[in-house]
């Protein structure tokens, strides 16, 4: 058996590294807040998993998928702007989640609890890491072209809907996996912060990918390590580490 502390460190690296790369594409597209609402959509599922004692990742993922489908259907029948619908659904899901959420577990749902990480989380996050890394490596420069100009991309036979769908599925998986590590409140920060400091430090695409990847992974693992050391919750520590790295990266910012 793998030691539970080692499990936490590894899950942190797997989830944080993919989150970092996803974030590096997110800040280019100026969709920086996508993973925020997606994380919040997880709350009803997280609450149910705590009440009925099943895997939190599964609850979170199903809940995010259900929320996304509801938004998608409402978008088709209501013709309202996506931002409005996302606002409505995400608030409703948070409200719904709090109806079920046992209050003694509130902190765990909001900022995470790494002690709950188990062997199945390790296996799932390793699988998502492998697939995510492969897919992102394949689509990375194409996603960047989409970020620069959708029309140029379309002329290169890069179909935005297909790529955005792949991208959103990966985000949903990572949001669901990150609930135990940092909770539903801070998922957006886990994707955005490593990407912003990678953006400051990188001079070309390869560096950008690698720094986001390693920065996200190592920063998350480091947060978990420090939480053990200082007996503080890991989620907030991880975010503070990234915030510190971001401030330091400002000194080296690309002109």
């Amino acid at each position, binding site marked *: 058996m793998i030691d539970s502390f080692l499990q936490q460190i590894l899950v942190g690296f797997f989830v944080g590294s993919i989150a970092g790369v996803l974030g590096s594409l997110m800040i280019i597209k100026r969709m920086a807040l996508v993973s925020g609402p997606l994380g919040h959509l997880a709350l009803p599922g997280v609450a149910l998993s705590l009440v009925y004692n099943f895997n939190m990742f599964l609850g979170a993922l199903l809940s995010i998928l259900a929320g996304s489908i509801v938004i998608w259907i409402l978008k088709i029948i209501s013709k309202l702007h996506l931002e409005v619908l996302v606002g409505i659904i995400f608030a409703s899901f948070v409200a719904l989640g709090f109806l079920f959420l046992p209050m003694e577990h509130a902190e765990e749902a909001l900022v995470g609890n790494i002690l709950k990480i188990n062997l199945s989380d390790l296996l799932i996050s390793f699988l998502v890491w492998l697939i995510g890394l492969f897919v992102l490596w394949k689509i990375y*420069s194409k996603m*960047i072209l989409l970020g620069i*100009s959708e*029309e*140029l991309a379309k*002329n290169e036979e890069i179909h935005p809907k297909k790529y955005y769908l792949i991208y959103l599925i990966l985000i949903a998986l990572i949001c669901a996996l990150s609930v135990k590590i940092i909770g539903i409140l801070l998922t957006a920060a886990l994707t955005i912060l490593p990407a912003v400091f990678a953006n400051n430090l990188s*001079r070309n*695409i390869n560096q*950008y990918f690698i720094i986001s990847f390693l920065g996200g992974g190592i920063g998350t693992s480091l947060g978990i390590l420090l939480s053990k050391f200082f007996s503080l919750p890991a989620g907030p520590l991880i975010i503070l580490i990234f915030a510190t790295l971001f401030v330091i990266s400002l000194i080296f910012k690309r002109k």
Partner: protein
Amino acid sequence: MEKILEVKNLTVKLDNEIIIDNLSFEIEKKEVFCILGPNGAGKTTLFKALLGLIPFSGKIKWKEGIRIGYLPERLSKMHFSNIPMTVKDFFFIKTKELSKIQEYLKQVGLNPSQILNKNPSQLSGGQFQRFLIAWVFISEPQVLLLDEPTTNVDVSGENFLFNFLAQERDKRNLTILLITHDLDIVYGFATKVLCLYKKALCWGIPRDVLTPQLLEKLYGTKLKFYIHKHD
């Protein structure tokens, strides 16, 4: 001459508003086809329909297997400024052959070793335009769609572009579709002109069809306007 494009009864609606209304025209190989019209006349929409980027009704028929290069409107240095990407990275999206990239950069008068590792947003306005042109040409297009390509460049950049296009057109029978507001370019460079305001207000050889009356109708105002005699 060989027909490159046939457009028949093209209608484009966006949000229930008719942007292009029953438009028909044809383009032959090696033509320089200018599209003239005021803002909101549907010029960019026409390009997007031709490229299959938006839904339309009617017929758009390109010659089979033709390679189309496209330079969208208002693609500026700003689009690259928040992305850690070099000129080389941007070419790598299309090809990883460094020698080919260098060759195309040289063709547009750029020094590869000077710019390959720079971010495109660090180039000067003129360099940036040449870089984009090289990027479009590296796919060896047979048809080129250029949407107001001289918006962000000065006179020398404009001169370079049209000299380069003329040279490439002769060298490899390139067909060019060009959206512009510049009547000088239409008279000096275009073999055909389409005046667009939802419908085709004129279509033909610039000197035959562009009358002061027509331009007034097209733009809704009297223009200062001279016919340049080049012969």
